[in-house]
C-alpha cells in the first residue's frame, strides 16, 4: 500500500500522520466497512468531514450501515498472453480496492468455474490471438462457458474489455464471444464491452472508468471513479519514470547479424544501454520498441498523395502538432490496412472503387485487397484524394510499439537489454515490403543510435521459483531469445536444476542462432542438454517437435521430476505442433488415454509449469 504524504494526498500533515497510523492496522473487513462509511458520509453529510475536523469518528463506525457486503464483491478475470490484460486487470483491481471493493483477481484458468454461479459482479479482460483464438490461460474457462456444464447466470452483472488488433480479421473475437455468451447465460451488462486496438491505453482507461461508475451506481454510491481514469496509463511498474507511454531512448551498443553468410535470413542481435533509465526486467519479459516507418515508404506516400512533407499536421489525438514527414515517420501506422480504415478513407476519395470494395457482397475481395498491402497501395489505387494531409492522418492508427522477447538477463548484464529481431523483407504486389520495426532495427539502428523502448513484464513466462526445478525450453528460430535470458539468469543464480533446450531453424551452418553461447553453456554445465533440428539440411524436414518425440522417454521422465516446460515462438504452426507432440509424449510414455494426457497438460498449465510466449 502506498504511504500517504502531503504531496500525494489532499490531507494536511497531521491528517496524514493519523491516517498513516490507522490505515496499516485495519483488517480487510474494517477497510471495506470504512470505505462504505466514508462514501455514505460524503453523500449524506456533504462536507461533514472537513479539513478542520481531522478526527476519524471511530466510535460511530458501528452505527451507519455500510452498503451490502455482497454487492461490493467484484471478480476480475483476465486471459492474457503477453501480459497486457493481466496488467490492466491488476491496475483495475487496485482502483476498486481503493474504493472499498473486495476484489477477487485471477487468471481465467485459476478460477474455479463452479463459483461462477455465486458471482455477482464479473469484470473480464481478455485478448484475442491468431484467428480469433483465446489466449492459453483463457482456453479452459472459454470452453467451460460454451459447454453444457455452463450455469444460468441471471444474477450476474458483467462487463468485458477486449484487446486485439484491427488488422486481423477476427478482431477482439474472444472478447466478443465472452460478452455474447455471458448475455446468453442470463448475465446483465454493467457497461458495454469495449474493444481495443493495439493502442489500447485510452479505450481501456475509458472502460475502467465506466465499469467503476457502473459498480458504484449499483451500490447507489457516489461516482468517484473519475480518479480511475488514469488507471490504465499507470499500469506499468512505477519504479522507473519510463513506460509504454513514455518510452526511454536507449542507446544501441551493439547490432549484429546472427545469421552467417549465405543464409536467406537476417536475425539481428541488438544490445541496448538502459543505464540511468531506472528500467529493469526479469527473464521472460519483453521489450517494447517504437519503430519508425521506412523513410522511402514515407517519401513515396507523400509524393503519391501530392502532399507537402513540411506542412503541419496533428501528431495524435491530444493535439500535438508536427510536420507531415515526422507524423508519417514516427506517429502513424502506414503499413497495415484495416477495414475500419478503408471505411473512413472511402469518405475521402471520389474514386468509386473503394466504396464498391466495401459493399457487403465483396467481403472476400476486401479481405484479399487488405492482405499484404499498405497505405501507399491505397493512395495509388484509389486516387484522386482531395483531402488535406491534416485531415487524412486523423483516420490513421497510432504507430504501435512492437514487443520482442528479451534475450539477456539483467543480473548477468546489468544496465543492458538484449533482444533478437528477424528482419522481415518480402515482395508483394510488385513492390518490396519491409517489416516496420525489424527493418528499422536491421538497417537504421547502428551503434550510437537510440531506440524508444519500454519494458513489458510477462508474468506468464517466468522461470520456476525453485532453482532446483528442471527446465525444458522449446524455442525454434527467434523463439530461442528468452531462453538465453533464462540460462544467463540461472547461471548467475547458480541454479542446480537441469536445463534442456530444443532449438531449430533452417540450416545448421548459417542459422544456428547464438550457437557459440549455447556451446559455452553446455561446456560450463549451465545447459544440460541441447537438441537441434534443421529443416533444410536433410531431404526430410525435421522440426523441434520431431526431436521431442525422439526423446519422449527422457522428456516424460523430466516432467515426472517436476520440470517446467516453456515454449516460445511461432504460434500458428510450431506451438500447435509442439503441443500435439507433448500430448503424444505424455500419452505414450505415461500410458494414458488422450483425455488423460490432455488433463495432465492442463494441470501443468494451471500449475504454471507449462508456459508459452507465442506470437
Amino acid at each position, binding site marked *: 500500500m502506498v504511504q500517504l504524504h502531503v504531496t500525494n494526498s489532499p490531507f494536511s500533515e497531521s491528517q496524514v500522520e493519523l491516517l498513516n497510523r490507522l490505515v496499516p492496522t485495519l483488517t480487510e473487513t474494517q477497510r471495506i466497512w470504512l470505505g462504505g462509511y466514508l462514501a455514505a458520509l460524503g453523500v449524506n453529510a456533504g462536507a461533514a468531514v472537513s479539513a478542520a475536523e481531522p478526527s476519524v469518528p471511530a466510535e460511530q463506525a458501528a452505527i451507519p450501515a455500510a452498503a451490502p457486503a455482497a454487492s461490493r464483491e467484484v471478480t476480475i478475470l483476465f486471459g492474457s498472453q503477453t501480459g497486457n490484460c493481466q496488467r490492466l486487470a491488476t491496475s483495475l483491481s487496485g482502483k476498486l480496492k481503493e474504493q472499498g471493493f473486495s476484489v477477487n483477481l485471477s487468471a481465467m484458468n485459476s478460477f474455479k468455474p463452479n463459483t461462477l454461479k455465486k458471482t455477482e459482479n464479473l469484470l473480464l479482460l481478455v485478448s484475442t490471438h491468431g484467428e480469433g483464438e483465446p489466449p492459453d490461460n483463457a482456453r479452459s474457462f472459454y470452453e467451460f462457458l460454451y459447454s453444457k456444464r455452463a450455469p444460468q447466470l441471471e444474477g450476474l452483472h458483467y462487463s468485458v474489455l477486449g484487446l486485439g488488433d484491427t488488422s486481423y480479421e477476427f478482431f477482439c473475437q474472444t472478447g466478443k464471444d465472452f460478452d455474447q455468451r455471458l448475455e446468453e447465460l442470463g448475465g446483465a451488462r454493467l457497461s458495454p464491452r469495449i474493444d481495443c486496438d493495439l493502442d489500447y491505453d485510452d479505450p481501456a482507461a475509458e472502460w475502467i472508468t465506466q465499469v467503476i461508475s457502473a459498480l458504484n451506481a449499483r451500490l447507489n454510491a457516489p461516482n468517484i471513479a473519475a480518479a480511475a481514469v488514469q488507471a490504465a496509463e499507470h499500469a506499468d511498474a512505477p519504479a522507473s519514470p519510463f513506460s509504454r507511454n513514455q518510452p526511454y531512448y536507449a542507446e544501441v551498443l551493439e547490432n*549484429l547479424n546472427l545469421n*552467417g553468410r549465405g543464409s536467406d535470413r537476417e536475425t539481428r542481435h541488438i544490445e541496448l544501454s538502459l543505464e540511468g533509465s531506472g528500467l529493469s526486467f526479469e527473464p521472460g519479459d519483453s521489450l517494447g520498441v517504437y519503430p519508425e516507418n521506412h523513410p522511402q515508404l514515407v517519401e513515396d506516400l507523400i509524393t503519391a498523395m501530392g502532399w507537402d512533407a513540411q506542412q503541419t499536421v496533428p501528431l495524435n489525438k491530444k493535439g500535438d502538432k508536427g510536420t507531415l514527414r515526422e507524423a508519417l515517420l514516427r506517429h502513424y501506422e502506414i503499413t497495415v490496412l484495416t477495414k475500419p480504415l478503408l471505411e473512413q478513407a472511402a469518405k475521402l476519395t471520389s474514386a468509386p472503387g473503394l466504396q464498391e470494395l466495401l459493399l457487403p457482397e465483396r467481403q472476400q475481395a476486401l479481405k484479399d485487397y487488405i492482405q499484404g498491402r499498405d497505405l501507399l497501395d491505397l493512395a495509388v489505387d484509389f486516387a484522386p484524394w482531395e483531402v488535406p494531409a491534416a485531415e487524412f492522418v486523423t483516420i490513421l492508427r497510432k504507430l504501435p510499439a512492437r514487443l520482442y522477447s528479451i534475450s539477456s538477463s539483467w543480473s548477468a548484464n546489468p544496465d543492458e537489454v538484449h533482444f533478437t529481431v528477424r528482419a522481415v523483407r518480402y515482395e508483394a504486389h510488385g513492390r518490396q515490403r519491409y517489416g516496420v520495426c525489424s527493418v528499422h532495427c536491421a538497417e537504421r539502428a547502428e551503434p550510437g543510435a537510440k531506440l524508444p523502448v519500454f519494458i513489458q513484464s510477462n508474468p506468464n513466462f517466468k522461470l520456476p521459483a525453485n532453482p532446483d526445478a528442471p527446465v525444458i525450453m522449446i524455442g525454434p528460430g527467434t523463439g530461442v531469445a528468452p531462453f538465453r535470458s533464462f540460462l544467463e539468469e540461472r547461471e548467475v543464480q547458480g541454479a542446480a536444476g537441469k536445463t534442456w533446450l530444443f532449438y531449430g531453424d533452417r540450416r*545448421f551452418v*548459417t542459422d544456428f542462432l547464438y*550457437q557459440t*553461447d*549455447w*556451446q559455452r553453456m*553446455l561446456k560450463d554445465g549451465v545447459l544440460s542438454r541441447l537438441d537441434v533440428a534443421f529443416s533444410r539440411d536433410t531431404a526430410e524436414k525435421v522440426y523441434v517437435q520431431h526431436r521431442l518425440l525422439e526423446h519422449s522417454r527422457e522428456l516424460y521422465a523430466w516432467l515426472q521430476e517436476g520440470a517446467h516446460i516453456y515454449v516460445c515462438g511461432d504460434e500458428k504452426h510450431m506451438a500447435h505442433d509442439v503441443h500435439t507432440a507433448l500430448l503424444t509424449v505424455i500419452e505414450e510414455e505415461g500410458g494414458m488415454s488422450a483425455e488423460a494426457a490432455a488433463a495432465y497438460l492442463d494441470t501443468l498449465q494451471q500449475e504454471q509449469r507449462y508456459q508459452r510466449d507465442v506470437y
Partner: protein
Amino acid sequence: MANHDPAVKPIGGPPSDVEHIKIESNYLRGALEETLRNPITGGLPEDDNRLLKFHGSYMQDDRDLRLERERSKLEPAYQFMLRVVAPGGVASAAQWLVLDELAHKYGNGTLRLTTRQAFQMHGVLKWNLKQTIKTINDTLMTTLAACGDVNRNVMSSPNPYQSELHAEVNEWARRLSDHLAPRTPAYHEIWLDGEKVVDSLEGVEIEPIYGPVYLPRKFKIGLAVPPSNDVDVFSQDLGLIAVVQDGKLAGFNVAVGGGMGMTHGDVNTYPQLGRVIGFCRPEQVIDVAEKTVTIQRDYGNRSVRKNARFKYTIDRHGIEWFQRELHDRLGWQLEEARTYQFDHSGDRYGWVKGYDGKWNLTLYIQSGRIHDTEDYLLMTGLREIAKIHTGEFRLTPNQNVIIAGVTSAKKRKIAELAARYGLTDGAMHTALRRSALSCVALPTCGLAMAEAERYLPQLLDKLEPVIQEAGLSEKEIVIRMTGCPNGCARPALGEIAFIGKAPGRYNLYMGAGFSGDRLNKLYKENIDEREILETLTPIIQQYAKERLGGEHFGDFVIRSGYVKATTSGLNFHK
C-alpha cells in the same frame, strides 16, 4: 622388433602429443563415432581430428569467414577436406563421374587434383562425411590413409607414351599402396557400417607393419619412369626409378630420404633429396618398401614432430647405417644401382599416341582445380567426356589430367567435346604458366600463412608479359608456390619458388634443377608482389640474353651467382 645394430639407438625424448593420441585411439577409433554424431558442432575435437586424417580427411574452416562468424556468435564454418587415394593417379571414367557427383552433392562443387595424384573434395559437412566416404568406397576407391602418419598415395608417372610400361609400373604402385594400407577395422566400422571387430584377439596382429602407434610421420613413395621425373622422385621418402631393358621393366633404382617440408626460422628443418642406394627387381619392391617403412617406424623421431620425417632419421644415423639396417631386415642385398637419365619433370600437353596405338590427351588444369566458371565449363566438359570415355583418367603429378587410352574410334568424339567446352592443352599460355604448381592454401587450409592457388595465377598475369617480352614464351621454367613451408607443391624443387610467410609476403627461392635433381636456395626473404616483380624482371631479361644453349633457368641463376647450388638438404640454409 629386434634392434639389428645395437650401436644405433632410436632417438629418445618424451613422445609428442600426437603419439599419445595415436596410442590411446585403439587403432584409429578414438571417440570419432560419437563426436561425428554430435549435432551441436560441425567440427571435431582436436584429438579426433588428428585421427580423422588417417581416415583421409582434415577438418578445415573457411578462414575468410572466421572473424565474421565469430561476431555472429557462430562457430567457424567447419567443413572437411576429403582426399581420395588413387595410386598412380588412375581413375576409371565411372569413378570420375561418382566423384564429380559427390563434389556437387556434398562438396563445394569443385574437385582438386593434388600434387600427389590424388583427388580432393572440399567443403564437406560433418553430417555428410559418412555418406560421401561410403559412396567413394562403393565405387572401389578409398580415403583410408590418404592423410596421417602412414604411407600416402603412391605416385607413379602417368607416362602417356610407354603404354605397357605404364600399366606395369602403375600395377606396382597399386600393390605397394595395398600392401602398406592400414589394416585397422576402424575404417569399416566408422564409415561402412562394418561389424565392430573385437580388438586385439590373442595372437592376431592388427597392424602387422605399423603396430599400434603407426609411423612417426607421413611416408611418401613415388615411382618414376625416366626420362620424365614428373613424380619428383627425389622428393619422396622412398623413390623408385624404373629401369627399362629391351622395352621391359627390369626393376627399380631405390632412392631414400627425400622430403620437402620445413619450418620457417628453424634450420634444423630443411628439404632434402633422396639418395640412390641400389637396385631391386620388380618382385622385390614390396619387401624393400615394407622394410624401409619398419625402419622408419622403429627409428623415427616420435618426440619432435617437425623432425620426424624419414629424411631426418637417415641424416641422423647416416645412409650407410640405413643400408646395413635394410639389408639386415631384408636378408638380402640390393644390387648396384643402374644408370638412369632424367631430363624434365613437367607434363607434355595435347594428344599423343601410345605404343599400344591408343591415344592420350593431356589437358592443362590451372592449379589442379576442376570447376566451372562463367566462361570456362571445365568440370562440365570433363564430365561429358567421362560419360563416353572407355579408358582411364590419369592425374599427373603436375596437377593436370590425361584422358588416357582413347581408342581411335572415340578420339574424334572426345576431341569434339574438348573443343566444345574449350578444354585446353594450355597452348595459349606461356610455358611458364603450364609448368606452374601451387597448393590449396587459403581459405580452407589451416596451415596457410599466405595465398597460393588463388594468387599464383594473378602473379603469373604480371610475370607473363616480362617472359613474353624476353622471348621466353615457350621456355619451360618450373615455378611453384605454397602458402606455408610444409611443401605440398614441392616448392624446394622450383627453379623459381615462393613460400608464404604472411598475407601478401613470400620467400623467393631459385636455382632448383629442371628435372628435379637439385634443391633451390633462398634468394629474397619476405617480399611482396612489387619486390617479386622488381627482383625477377631483370633476372629473366638477363637469362633471355645470356643463357647458354639449352641452359635452364635454375642452372643459369647459379652460374650467374644469384644463388649457390644446394648440393644437399644439409646445406639448404647455407
